[in-house]
């Protein structure tokens, strides 16, 4: 299989602090890959390096076989990279529908249009509604997103990314703070995505990770500790001492 997303010797330093240390990472097409690691391991930094929110100190990021290290975020999104945020990053004063529609319109190249009313673009609205429907929050479409309960806001967070129809989807702790019922909805939504989409999920909930992922990378202090199938990771002594052991303590 070919890698849809790959990093080579990726480094990020903030002064003397190295938060990404020579990370070589491959995300295969259609993979369900999880990135785990203790708090402060540099997981979110890694995602920010992948999306272009942060520029690396050295190393390269390859997307679809092309070097995108110097490409801004918008360019990477156009090449199929979508993400969600660990902390809800929503358009709080806008409706749920608009939150999702903004991304869809951007993907369809309609969002620079400044003449006809947005409501005129029925295709955008319908796509947004069917996406919300698939996450079972279509009935909330007209509500202001800041008025929704937290769990449903998490679903909107994911809906925005799905509206981009990404080929590579980065999920930064999608289930953080979500009640179990809605975790179920999130998992179902991810399961129903086309199998060709490669997903990288950062998650602390180990049940979710082992249920979802077919491959796991463990990041510790900015370095890749090991990578393998879920069973290998679960049985790895280093992982148990550094990560799982620490959590039990």
């Amino acid at each position, binding site marked *: 299989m070919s890698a849809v997303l790959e990093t080579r010797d990726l480094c990020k330093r903030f002064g003397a602090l190295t938060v990404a240390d020579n990370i070589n990472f491959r995300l295969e097409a259609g993979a369900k890959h999880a990135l785990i690691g203790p708090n402060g391991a540099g997981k979110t930094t890694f995602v920010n390096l992948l999306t272009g929110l942060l520029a690396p100190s050295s190393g390269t990021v390859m997307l679809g076989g092309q070097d995108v290290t110097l490409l801004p975020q918008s360019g990477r999104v156009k090449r199929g990279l979508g993400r969600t*945020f660990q902390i809800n990053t*929503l358009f*709080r004063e*806008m409706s749920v529908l608009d939150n999702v529609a903004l991304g869809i*319109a*951007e993907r369809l190249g309609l969002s620079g249009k*400044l003449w006809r009313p*947005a*409501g005129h673009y029925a295709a955008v609205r319908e796509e947004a509604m069917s996406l919300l429907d698939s996450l079972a929050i279509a009935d909330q479409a007209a509500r202001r997103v800041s008025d929704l309960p937290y769990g449903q806001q998490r679903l909107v967070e994911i809906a925005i990314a799905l*509206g981009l129809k990404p080929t590579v989807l980065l999920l930064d702790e999608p289930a953080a703070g979500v009640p179990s019922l809605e975790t179920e909805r999130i998992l179902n939504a991810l399961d129903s995505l086309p199998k060709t989409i490669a997903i990288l999920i950062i998650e602390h909930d180990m049940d979710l990770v082992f249920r979802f992922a077919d491959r796991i990378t463990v990041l510790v202090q900015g370095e890749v500790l090991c990578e393998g199938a879920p069973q290998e990771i679960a049985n790895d002594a280093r992982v148990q001492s550094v990560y799982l052991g620490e959590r039990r303590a």
Partner: protein
Amino acid sequence: MKHPVGYGADARLRWTEWLPWVVAVAVFFLLPEYLSLGARVLTYILFALSLDLVLGYAGIVTLGHAAFFGTGAYVAGILAAKLGVTDPVIQLLASAAAAALLGLATGAVILRTHGLAQLMLTLAVAAVCLEIANKATALTGGADGLSGVSVAAIFGQFKFDMYGRTAYLWCLLLVFTGWWLVRRVIYSPFGATLTGIRENSVRMHSIGAPVYQRLLTVYTLSAAMAGTAGALLTQTNQFVGLNVLGFEPSGEILVMLILGGVGRLYGAFVGPLLFLIAQDYLARQFPEYWYFGIGLILVLVVLFARGGILGISDAIIARMGRKS
């Protein structure tokens, strides 16, 4: 009256949206002695609309919007007084173009920054413009101002009369055009992305929006509108003073917009109307203390009515709706 925009919004005109125009036309027939004040109010409404576009919708905080207003005023004035271009339409177009160019050039730098740095840069641009106008006395008349502004008949037909009838209708026509343009923009997908940028620019980047380019577009558009308003001021006053570029108009237009309600489209109508009428009245009653009254109103609005006057009316309507 808070206008929901975006993909689920109904963009058709509501009957309340005709009210400002009915009032404006009624003033023309019923209050002929107030037409010069009326033209001034209309000019500032256009200026406030331009500010609402960048501040209320795109969330760009600026303390230097007078740079564009003043540039427009001076371009129209210099054309009329120094270069003998007296056609009002050409003056307006030239003013809009010059202000747009300035908006594009300064926006290219300013919009790369955020927060306080952005605020300071907008202030700096206006200060630089003021100083240029102050020093270039051959063109601008410097601190003495630019007099001898002559404006020909509009479309070769309608002369500016001493009662201010033509000036009022001319301003009204341009405010109507400006309002219509702004309304189209804010309801459009482009307008929705502006709101998105205001709400969360991090997320806008992550859905692939060219944020900087969008901001630059709206900043340029807004500058052109502010420049047009400045040209209107020149045409109706037939004089340009240095104060059009000062800190005062930048601050005042912000105060007017906050009074009326930011990001509400019609706040740009209510604010200047209230502010300028209050100014006119208070300045006559209390020539020495009139700014105190304005200050008091502003303090009350900021403390108790964050949404401005229109925010208060929204709250009242909502409460009545709940009771009935």
